[in-house]
């Protein structure tokens, strides 16, 4: 029950620190995520034993600034959307990014949490061959190996 209520970071992802940001690679979904400093700090505290209020308290002590719970909720929402948390059974209503910004005020002491994601490319996507529907003159140019002669366009694959 406790695990369902309190956020817990997935342990089956690869992560590396880049300054105060963290790059996370989801091995199951082949998706990469960049967590900015606030999202990364929140993610590290998601051990299944703390609720958002407790995480906000810990963050406030760590960063020596008052961190509102709405900021933590916003981070948890983004981390959840990115599938970086163990799924919670009943997601609760959280304040939107706009509400969180309003609550924080204009001169916020910490950055708003941000999780940016990309889908990892397949080898063919990350190479200089032409993809489907791009113009071609021979089969050799297409990732699929098939250049439709009538329309001079890569097809198949």
């Amino acid at each position, binding site marked *: 029950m406790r695990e369902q209520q309190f956020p817990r970071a997935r342990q089956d992802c690869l992560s*590396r620190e880049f300054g105060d940001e963290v790059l996370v690679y989801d091995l199951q979904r082949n998706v990469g995520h960049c967590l900015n400093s606030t999202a990364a700090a929140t993610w590290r505290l998601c051990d299944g034993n703390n609720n958002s209020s407790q995480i906000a308290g810990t963050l406030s002590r760590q960063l020596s600034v008052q961190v509102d719970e709405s900021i933590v909720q916003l981070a948890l929402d983004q981390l959840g959307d990115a599938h970086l948390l163990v799924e919670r059974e009943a997601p609760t209503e959280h304040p939107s990014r706009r509400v969180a910004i309003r609550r924080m005020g204009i001169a916020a002491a910490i950055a708003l949490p941000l999780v940016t994601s*990309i889908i990892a*490319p397949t080898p063919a996507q990350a190479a200089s061959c*032409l993809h489907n529907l791009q113009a071609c003159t*021979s089969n050799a140019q297409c990732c699929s*190996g098939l250049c439709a002669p009538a329309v001079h366009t890569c097809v198949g694959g």
Partner: protein
Amino acid sequence: MNVSGLMPGILPRLPPGWKVSRRVVVERLYSLVVADGFERRGMRRLHVLYANSIRVARDTSLNMVLEALENDLQRYTATATSEMTFLHAGVVGWRGRAIMVPGCSLSGKTTLVREMLRLGATYYSDEFAVVDDSGLVHPFARPLGIREDFFPAQTNYTAENLGASTGVKPLPLGTAVLCSYEAGARWQPALLSQGQGALELLANSVAVRCQPHQTLRRLQKLVEHAVFVKGARGEAREAAASILNQSCAEEGWGAA
């Protein structure tokens, strides 16, 4: 090969830095079947290339089939090599550091590399940035494949054809330039954080799906002292000059 005398045409198409191996067991076996010289009515003479048992190319032009061999070999090398991480990017050397232009095909990276070579940069690659365990960038100096006016066929030029030299020494990454072409755009890039920059490089990692641990580890080393800039560029010449100037200026990209 079912005919002799083709090797002189194949050797220049092997990946840069190839060596003869004495191993009798190979990981990938290419077979090239060249059509015979007899014309038969209603029949096309097709040359066929196989990698192991998979057909890679089939075309009436032998040159196109050899081009497919070249492309497939490069793709296979980039995917199968575990000692290095291959990023899809153009690279030049400039004042002891690498300038990297990641991007997919038709993003204009070769054009930008060519312009930087014209301005005195050293050629490393127009296709792959090859990164070792220390995060250094190695050359993969295949001939530049230049598409004129977005015509899909490419013409190959060596760096020397363009009046530039080819780099040999591995370099640390200085600047990674993430740009897209936009007619008439003025090059005014924004700085990216290290994490955001690393994520952009991850999106151009050829083998991240099969080698995620090595890729992340090498990316972390690669970006340690690198600057990332992102924006739309207009003409490559203007952007290239600005990139080279700001990559060596004391104030660097802080003023960008």
